[in-house]
């Protein structure tokens, strides 16, 4: 684990620049290039933030589950850290998704919340489940136990996400736009391009933040261990 900070910190600057450029360009295109949607008008543009955030959050939860699985397989703490950072960032994106989704729902359907809306409801359930991750994690003191319980949770919740989406969809009527199914075919090229660019930007943002937090966590852990060593040496020097 000694070389971990360099691994997670490598290329961070270039990545940060690429993220800024991609997201900046995407948002500029959203405002100045893409046409207003005929049906919903300007409001529909929130779609370029909302959908990428939702997709990246769900991928992040899945990644958290995979990292958790790796932690259980290998027993290495660094996998647990990776899983934790993924879930923690995805949780923030999920909060953003719920808020932007709610704004969109108010503008498009006239209500802040629509219950007969499978994607919205599934997302809320997933959010509620993952909101328990941190209370679970930080209520276990023993680090080894914490890593194991958190990883088991990450794997279970990761498996739950697709099941939950299937279940809620079966139960409800369809009103949400099928973002990736039917609409892609009908979306004009400018819109599709901007959407994909925004998605790429959001993914880059996630990766940058993830690497940044991993590097910082590793640095902090290393610092703590160096401090401990110095204190030990001072204590031993004092004794001698």
């Amino acid at each position: 684990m000694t070389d971990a900070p360099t691994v997670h910190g490598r290329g961070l600057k270039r990545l940060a620049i690429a993220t800024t450029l991609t997201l900046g360009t995407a948002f500029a295109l959203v405002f100045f290039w893409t046409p207003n949607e005929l049906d919903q008008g300007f409001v529909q543009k929130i779609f370029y933030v909302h959908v990428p955030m939702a997709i990246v959050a769900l991928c992040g939860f899945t990644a958290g589950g995979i990292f958790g699985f790796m932690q259980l397989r290998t027993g290495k703490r660094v996998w647990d850290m990776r899983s934790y950072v993924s879930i923690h960032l995805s949780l923030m994106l999920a909060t953003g998704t719920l808020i932007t989704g709610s704004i969109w729902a108010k503008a498009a359907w006239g209500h802040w919340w629509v219950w007969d809306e499978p994607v919205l409801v599934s997302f809320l359930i997933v959010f509620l489940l993952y909101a328990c991750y941190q209370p679970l994690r930080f209520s276990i003191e023993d680090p080894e136990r914490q890593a194991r319980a958190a990883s088991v949770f990450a794997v279970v919740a990761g498996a739950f996400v697709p099941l939950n989406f299937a279940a809620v969809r079966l139960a409800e009527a369809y009103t949400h736009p099928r973002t990736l199914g039917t609409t892609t075919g009908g979306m004009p090229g400018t819109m599709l391009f901007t959407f994909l660019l925004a998605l790429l930007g959001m993914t880059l943002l996630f990766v940058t933040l993830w690497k940044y937090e991993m590097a910082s966590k590793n640095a902090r852990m290393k610092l703590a261990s160096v401090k401990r060593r110095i204190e030990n040496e001072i204590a031993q020097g004092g004794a001698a």
Partner: protein
Amino acid sequence: MIRQALILLRKDLLLELRGREALPAMLLLAGTTMVVLHFALGQRSVTGGTAAGCLWVTLLFSATLGINRLFVAEQEEGGLDAVLLTPVERTAILLAKATTLFIFMVALELVIVPAFALLLLGPDLLPTLGGLIPTLLLVDLAIAAVGALVGAIAVQSRIRDLLAPLLALPLLLPALIAGAKSAELLFAAAGPAPIPGRWPLMLALYALVFGLLGVALYDYLLDD
């Protein structure tokens, strides 16, 4: 392994018979929930979707109590360490815990479903039983599979009592959806309608997936 599971199951049931900690509390909570529902809804009797909702809310809340109690003896009396010291397979522990929860749920339903029919349910209970019993058993299976897993996760933490319901309820929602959709048809005011095959199938699949997850993950959870 089955023999080990049976021994552990016998221990859990014996504990419950002598201590009577989980089931009476589950029954009381279920009874109280029905009274609360009566006043909250302001209705003398319920049918269709509302009836299904009342039944599942009652059962699910009681189930979270049961899930909470599942590992209490192990944790508070240090029994878990003793069990783990014996050469018992983790899967046997999972099987025993899930079966305990299943039996708790069936025992609870034996009392609560007739009570529900007396207190709240509008349509006659008897004609619905043919569809209701298999649905209840499938939901119990799902609750047992999810509950044994959640109980083992929650017991690791200091705030076990808080976490178990918070983890269990969202995880059980898909099972609740399938159960409620089935019961809605059964409790229809015009008489029970047939249940489409996808709901029982989903319940069975859900129980299976979480059962397998439990088998795969129990080794890591209870490993010291």
